[in-house]
């Protein structure tokens, strides 16, 4: 259960897009790891950064805050940031926070790579 398993990053397989895949719960004890990962990926100024939430069971406002911050940096750096794969419970929290229109949200990684 080391932090090594919390977020995986794939810089290759997806047509120049960097794929960031957090795992499990993105809560107060774990969102800092996602935050650091997004930060490091963005430092490389990719054209596109896809955050695949398919393996995220749960997210709280610390996770949302992390994504909002990344989205703002992405806009500044002209990186296209896309979210995909979220389940109903995770989608509900985006809606409660009225953030579902702030992000580009699609269903699958395939769509996210081309959205």
């Amino acid at each position: 259960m080391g932090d090594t398993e919390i977020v995986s990053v794939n810089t290759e397989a997806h047509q120049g897009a960097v794929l960031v895949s957090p795992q499990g719960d993105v809560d107060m004890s774990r969102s800092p790891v996602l935050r650091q990962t997004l930060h490091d990926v963005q430092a490389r100024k990719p054209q596109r950064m896809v955050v695949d939430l398919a393996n995220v069971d749960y997210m709280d406002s610390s996770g949302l805050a992390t994504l909002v911050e990344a989205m703002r940096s992405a806009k500044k750096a002209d990186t296209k940031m896309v979210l995909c794969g979220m389940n109903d419970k995770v989608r509900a929290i985006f809606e409660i926070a009225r953030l579902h229109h702030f992000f580009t949200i699609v269903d699958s990684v395939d769509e996210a790579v081309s959205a």
Partner: protein
Amino acid sequence: MTPPNAHGRPHIRVELLSNPIYLSGARELVGTVAKRLGFDDLDCSKIALAVDEALCNVIRHGYGRALDRPIWISIWPVEHDGAAEGIRIAIEDEAKQVDPEQMQGRALTDIKPGGLGVHIIREVMDEATYEKREGGVGMRLTLVKKAPRPTEPGVITEAASRAVQSTRPQAR
């Protein structure tokens, strides 16, 4: 300002340390109990989210991220004629008391990181009341959510015993 014991003894009371590694356990407990009290899966996860946000706020704002301070979560079924009609949850701490007016979510029109917790709590629950605890130290947040449809009467007080005792010749 009704102290929680105006609702009788809690059915479940948890004391946990203010360490974020225990948040997931608290969420699962609360979500699972809500399920047995008649909430559907999505509502259970929203209730768990509200409790998680409240606990995070205690850890961050109340205790300045100290890992070893106590937090109490109390749970009561909201009952009416023996049927479960919802859930009542109190979250208490021993932190410095602040004016309940200060517990304000920000407007969501301005999109920025942070400042979402209180908004989420109020959006998800039917009631969310902050108050100073009796005795000069610590805050209490009381959360109430009504179940979408009541469970059948007796689920809390009788059904369990009915179910467990009835019909079995053995294992009595």
